[in-house]
Structures are given as C-alpha cells and as structure tokens.
C-alpha cells in the first residue's frame, strides 16, 4: 500500500495539532522503591533481586524515603502543588515482567499536581502545564529470543530479568498542549530537553534516554480550526530528543493523511521507528484495559509535612533556564549567541571549560567552532565528541602561552578527538609545538630576507605592511610551527 503523504507545511496550515507528553524518569536512588536491592544499571540478569522485588508470597513493600524526596523536589522544580496526604495504588494487569501482576503506582492521589515548566522556543517562552508527577515502581524486562524481530511473535522463548523490577520511577504528565501549530514537534523536543535539564540539575537521575532512565511517550491529535480536539494516539519507543521531534512530526502527517482521506483516527498505542521515522500501530486502546486501581493496602499513606516540603523547596538548585540567563550575562553574550550555545548543547561544556581556567570567548570558540563541526559531521551529541572541558581548557592555555598557534591547535584537537590523549601529550608526541628557539627563527628570517631583497627594501623604507610576505615565507620554512607574531617582530627588528 503506497500512500502519498501530504507535505508537513501544508498539514499544519490546515490542521491544529494538540500534543501531550508522558515522561518516565528512573530515579538514581541507591536502592529500589520498596526494598533494599541496588539500582545500578547493568549487572547479570536476576542478580539484583530479593523476595520483595520478586513479589514472592508473603513479602511486603516498604517505601523508599529518598525516592519520595526526589519526587517532591521534581514536583517543586515544576511548580507543582505537593499533596499533604496521598496514597499509592495498585494497577492490576497480568504481564510476566511484573512480579506481582500489579504495579504499585499512584492513581487519583498523585504526590504532585498542577504545575508548569517554561520552555524557550526560538527565543520565546512557552509555558507547558504539568498535570501530575507521581511515583511508581518499574517493571522487569522481557527478552524474547529465537524469533527474527525480538518481539514476542515468533519467539521460541521469553526470558525475564527482574533486576529493573522495583526501581523507582517518576511519571511526569503534561496537560494537553494546544496552540503551538507548526512548532508542535519543536515544542515537544524543547520540553523534554528542558525537563531533562531540570531533573539533571536536581541530581536525582542521570536522565539518559539511550539507557532508558528517561523514557517518553508522545500524545498527538489533530483538529480543524474551530473544532473540538481530535482523537489522540500515544506514540511509544521514542528514545532520543531528536526522535521526540520526529515522532510528533510524522504522527501529525500520518493523521492528516488519514483525515484527508475521510478516515478517522483510532485511539491506540503506536510505535516509533528510529530507522524510518514512522510510527506503526500497536495495541488498540478503544477497549480500555481496566486496571482495577485501588489504594495499596500494604503501604501507609504518604503525608509529607509542610516543614519538610519547605526545606526541600529552599534547597532547590538554580533551575536551568535561570542558570542560563545568569551565564549569558556573565559571558557577555547576545540572546542570539546564547541561543546558538543552547542549541549546540554546549552550555554545561562551556561552563566547565571556563571553570577549568579558560575565558568565555576561548571556550565558546572551540566548542561552537571546531568541535561542533566535528559532532555535526559524525551525527553525535557535542558531549560525545571525544574532547572534555579539561582538554579544551588545556588546549587554549597552550595557545595563550604561545606554545601553539591556531593552526597547530586544530591539529592537536584532531588528536584529542581521535583519543590520542591530552593536548600537551599530543603536541609533544606529534612534534606540533611552536618553534620558540629564537636562534632557529633568526636563521629562517635571515634566509627569507636574503631570498626577497626587494621586499626587505620596502620594509626598510617603512612599508611595514609588506612584512606579511616574509612572515609567510618563514612560516612555510618552519612548516607552520612558528608563532607568526614573533616572526613579524623579528623581521621588523632586523630591518629597522
């Protein structure tokens, strides 16, 4: 079946998208939500388990205070109201990766409600409403082996790893976000990015999408202007920031093509595919699963007292957007320049580079110039480019000390990115240092003067601008390893 999809610009000119995001964050607590098992990523399957997280008959959960605290801090950072009394609830459904066949979650009494997060899109603030933030336990992981797809269909065996079962999970749900028009995909991405930064600043999770400690489901619907909101779909398997944007965009186009053809949108779960950028249909939600929620009788209600909450509020760090505002002022950047720093994902990198002793200008030059170019070419995040803030600071120091010139510094950086070591090591190993031996330089200068008598004459006559030719000759003779400024000074001294 070949369907010609309408162009995006055409779709958003005719339809209004409404989006919504559900984000799951695995907390970085030392122990699981309801038992003392460790939470660190990896580990042999089924080695981080006990009677409680395996749901053995007779075992009982005990809530992890650190996880509750982390959730309240997230709620506060998102301007939510913190419940003075709330309960956990059981969400009942059968699935082998759920040891008890119910998940301890929260239902109609979430810990945090009704907040907001301001997100910057193209220099404008968009306020995203937060419906709720609640705490629950993660499930185990099922691995289907023997089939072609890794899905249960066609598999000969299914293996379950319960190491992840019981890891504290915070669910953050936005209110529906209407009115973003063509920017809907960008807003979705900006929200998840900002949320990630906020949570990272709270130091409660490593929020790594590629490891699954930050997971995002995207709800999308379309409606004609002036009409009621359309039926929404929920897209899962959105595993990177880029995918968030692509998933919304592709779902907007798909829904438009269905509506254009006179069809109707089915309320369903869809799966995003990284390779094609498409979504495909998952399970239908039209016959809603009845989770038979009821208050968890094995746990006592949560009643965070006001004093504790205000202590936590007072202890919140400066939130990323305000932090960026302050940095922008400190670094003396225009809005536009700061925007490019943010877009490149370079805020923290530059901040750390400056902390390592570099000027804002020096730090920004490397990260947004040479390194951003390399990251772009490789299609990777800037932070993954292979150079650290310490490397960049060291490189700039070598330049400032006159041991490297700009051209040599780029060559050294190439070595850093290739993993050859720290800048000083590479400079020595590759013999890339500036020739600072005045004896050797003087000889090269004399040679250049001798080889270009007419140029030398012009300089003697006061036409200092002509020195460039001789500088070029010396640089060529030293294979670029001389400091051009020193060379120029030597030439002029020689000829005056």
């Amino acid at each position, binding site marked *: 079946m070949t369907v010609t999809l309408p162009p995006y610009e055409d779709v958003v000119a005719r339809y209004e998208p409404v989006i919504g995001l559900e984000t799951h964050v695995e907390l970085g607590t030392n122990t699981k939500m309801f038992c003392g098992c460790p939470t660190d990523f990896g580990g042999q399957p089924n080695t981080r388990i006990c009677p409680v997280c395996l749901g*053995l*008959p*007779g075992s009982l959960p005990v*809530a992890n205070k650190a996880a509750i605290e982390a959730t309240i801090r997230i709620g506060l950072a998102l301007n939510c109201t913190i419940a003075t009394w709330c309960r956990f609830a*059981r969400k009942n459904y059968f699935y*082998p990766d759920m040891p008890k066949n119910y998940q301890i979650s929260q239902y109609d009494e979430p810990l945090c409600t009704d907040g907001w997060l301001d997100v910057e899109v193209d220099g404008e603030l968009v306020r995203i409403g937060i419906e709720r933030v609640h705490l629950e336990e993660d499930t185990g992981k099922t691995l289907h082996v023997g089939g072609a797809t890794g899905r249960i269909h066609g598999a000969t065996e299914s293996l379950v790893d319960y190491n992840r079962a019981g890891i504290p999970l915070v669910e953050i749900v936005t209110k529906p976000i209407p009115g973003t028009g063509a920017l809907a995909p960008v807003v979705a991405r900006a929200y998840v990015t900002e949320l990630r930064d906020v949570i990272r600043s709270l130091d409660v999770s490593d929020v790594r999408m590629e490891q699954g400690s930050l997971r995002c489901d995207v709800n999308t619907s379309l409606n004609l202007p002036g009409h009621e909101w359309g039926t929404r779909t929920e897209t899962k398997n959105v595993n990177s920031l880029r995918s968030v944007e692509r998933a919304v965009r592709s779902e907007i186009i798909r829904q438009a093509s269905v509506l254009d053809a006179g069809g109707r949108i089915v309320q369903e779960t869809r799966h995003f595919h990284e390779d094609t950028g498409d979504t495909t249909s998952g399970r239908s939600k039209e016959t809603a699963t009845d989770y038979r929620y009821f208050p968890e*009788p094995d*746990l006592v209600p949560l009643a965070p007292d006001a004093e504790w909450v205000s202590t936590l509020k007072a202890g919140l760090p400066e939130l990323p957007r305000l932090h960026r505002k302050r940095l922008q002022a400190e670094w003396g950047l225009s809005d536009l320049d700061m925007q490019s720093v943010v877009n490149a994902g370079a805020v923290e990198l530059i901040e750390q580079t400056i902390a390592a002793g570099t000027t804002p200008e020096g730090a920004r030059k490397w990260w947004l110039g040479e390194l951003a170019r390399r990251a772009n070419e490789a299609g990777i995040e800037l932070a993954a480019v292979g150079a650290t803030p310490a490397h960049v600071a060291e490189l700039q120091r070598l330049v400032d000390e006159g041991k490297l010139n700009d051209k040599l510094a780029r060559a050294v950086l190439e070595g850093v990115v290739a993993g050859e070591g720290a800048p000083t090591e590479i400079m020595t190993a590759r013999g890339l240092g500036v020739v600072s031996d005045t004896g050797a330089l003087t000889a090269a200068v004399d040679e250049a003067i001798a080889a270009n008598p007419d140029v030398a004459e012009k300089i003697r006559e006061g036409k200092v601008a002509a020195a460039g030719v001789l500088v070029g000759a010396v640089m060529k003779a030293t294979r670029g390893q001389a400091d051009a400024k020193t060379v120029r000074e030597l030439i002029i001294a020689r000829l005056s």
Partner: protein
Amino acid sequence: MSDVFHLTATEIAARDASGDASATEITQAHLDRIAAVDDRVHAFLHVDAEGALAAATAVDERRAAGEELGPLAGVPIAVKDIVATKGVPSTAASKILEGWRPPYDATIVTRMREAGLVMLGKTNLDEFAMGSSTEYSAYGPTFNPWDLSRIPGGSGGGSAAALAAYEAPLAVGTDTGGSIRQPAAVTGTVGAKPTYGGTSRYGLIAFSSSLDTPGPCARTVEDAALLHAVLAGHDPRDSTSIPQPVPDVVGAARRGASGDLTGVKLGLVREFSGEGAEPGVMAAFHDAVDALTKLGAEVVEVSCPHFEYALPAYYLIAPSECSSNLARFDGVRYGLRVGDDGAKSLEEVMSLTRESGFGPEVKRRIMIGTYALSSGYYDAYYGQAQKVRTLITRDFTSAFEQVDVLISPTTPFVAFPLGARTADPYQMYLADLYTIPVNLYGGPGISVPCGLSEGLPVGLQIAAPTLADDRMYRVAAALESAIGTLTPGELS
C-alpha cells in the same frame, strides 16, 4: 493426664527450665502424639520432625551452656501453613503452591525461633485462609477432635485441632475475618487476634492485606499471652506494623487469673443478642456473662447499629484485596505451572495454571473481588464497603467510650458436621458474623471457652480498643479462672 503432651506451654517451660525434661524429650513426645493421632485429625500438612528435633537440641545445648532463655524456650509449636517458613513447604493449602519452599522466614517465625520455640510443622487451613471450616483445603479437611465427624472451624482449623488433639501446646494462626477466633471457639481452645499492625504480616501469604493479622493459639489464656508477647512488636519490613511498645498482655493475663474484675465494664452488643445463633450457644454465653458479673464486672448494653452491614462489607473488601494479592500466582516464577507444552501462549499457560491451581472458594472470591474493583462498579461496591468500614469503626469508638471491652459469642453455632454448609456459601459466611466487625475495625479480639452446648465447646469473644490487647487478656483469664479449660474426650 500424666502424658507430656497434655502439658500447657507454661508447664513445659517450667519443666525445661528446672531440668525435669529436655526440649528434645518434649518435642519427641509431641512428634509421637502427632504420629499416633494425626491420621484421624489431619491437623498437619507437613511435619518437620528433623527440623523440630534439631531446634530442640539447639535449645537444650543453649540451656546446658548456661544461656538465659526466654519463657517459651523449648516449647513445641505448630504453624499455620500460610506463614512462610524458610526451606519448609508453605502451601497456603493450595495446589498452586504445592512444593514451594520459601527462601525466607516470616518475621513472626524469626521471632518464634529466636525465642527458642520449636516448630513441629505446618497446619491445615482453608485454601489461602478463605473459609470457616477447613473443608476448602486442597489437601483434604481437618477433623474436630471433639467429634471427628465435625469441622474444626476455619480457616485455621488445623492449628486449633492440633491444640485440641494435644499434638501441640501452642500454634500460630492468622485472622482475617475470624480465622483464629472461630476455630478456637469450636475446638474449646483459646485464640487471639491482636490489634491489626501489632503483629507483623511480613511473610504471611496475603489474603486481605488490610485485615490479615497473625496471632497466638493455645489451650490457656496465659499460654496465648506468652506467645502473643513473642510474636508481637514493630517490624520495619511491614509498613502497616505499629511502631509502639506491645501492651503487657502476660501481666494482664496473670492479673485476670486472680478472678477479680471489679470496676471492669463489659459491653453487650445489642445487635448481637442472639438472632440467628443457636439457643445452646446463647445459653452458654449468658451463663458466662453471669459468671463474669460474679467476678465484679459491670455489664452494659451498647448499640453498634452498623454491625449488620459488616458481613457484606467484608465480603467486598476481602475478595477485592485477594483478587489482587493472588494475581501473582501465574506459574511464571514459582509453584504450579500447567500447560507449558511449547505450543500454548503465555496467557493460556497462566489461565490453565490458575484454573487448575485454585479451588472453588478461592475462584469465587477472586471473581467477586475482580468485579467489585472494576471501573464503573468500584464506587458502588469497594468504595461503599470502605464507607461502611468507617461507620463500623465509629460504632466501636463510641462503644469504647462507654465500656472497656465488648463481649459476644464468638460464633453463632457449635462445630457443625462436615459438608453441612459447603453447598451454600452464605451459610458458611455466617460463621464469622460476630468476628468480622472486629477485623474491619482493626482492634484486638480473643475467643475463650465459655461452656458446652450439646457436648460441644462454645466460645466467648472479647473485643478491646486498638492497642489495648491487654484488656481482653485480663477478662479472658478471669473467665477461664471461673469456668476452667475444656477438655475433649480421648481420641478413640
């Protein structure tokens, strides 16, 4: 009555301590008794002779080494098979857990072992503690030592029968709607349900989390109090466990044994004045009330208008919680697995396992509970039942403003013949008419023998305010001092 197995726990402990008998001898005597009579009583699902003798030897060695031991060290005990015991089968009397050996001990078992109690084995019960006659055990019923053609009550019929048949001087039970007290009543033994949260649920195979309460079973009030003191206390592994000191139940029992109840106000619940109860039960109860009055107690009638809704509320709350608690039995991780032939889907294997692993009463309750929690029915059933629970709690609170304890018969009828009530679930549910309100409230309750009707034991229930478990022991011990313990005829 010179046989060792006729001794109470208090008497055994005294002999142990004085060196008149070793724990090993005492344990062996009880194992011999079990071997002699349990084929007729069927109180035990599993006898752990080896483990019991090893534990007894350890107690003897500790005593020989001069160690100071607790008041129940070396006393044998039977444990209801719904309690997880490390390495020892724990089936909840269900096929679905046949052969499962937990990798851990329940907290109350740990406390029991630390106190030097010697576990003889695991006792029979209605499957997952759902029933009032032990007839719903997947491994066959237990028979009442007073009359082997009759039921020993339930769900803890195994523990109660083991006491009445002198197979053990102490037993552990669990009480969700009366499963300790009602079997105690119909076997002429003593059974106490502590305040909810007073004893840890960690390691109890859950039936109804907001109601389940483990507690002591014994032949005397003092023995029950001694075991209560061992089992009770805050447990950080159970969030609903109460972080407060255990009331002095042993002291209260000893004080009550002096037979003086001057100044104690007993409340007679008007709504439990005998409607639906057997006349013989009411007669024995009223005789006991007279006896209590003679000991100095004042009797006041109180009204608890919402008690009549307790049974329906219970039969929504308990099944709702059980429908969720029992979801984990799916054949994936442990226990029975049926239909895993490589051709069937996971869902089919789960269904087949549950279909053949659960008995009819368990299935009935899972279905009722699943329905009551369903979207669209939740408010009308589970939600409404919770409101009733609140009203019943208020009835208790206001009653306890007028009286110290509430008294009633423990159960409306004496031990009935096997098969008499299995055809009509509602007739079975009525057995817990008087015990269920106490569970919904969460306070403590005890059943103590108060006489005979048609040659069969009748129990009197004493209910006290939450955390005032000591009060009921005082009254129970006083009644025991007036009436004496009940002894069945020797098993033929």
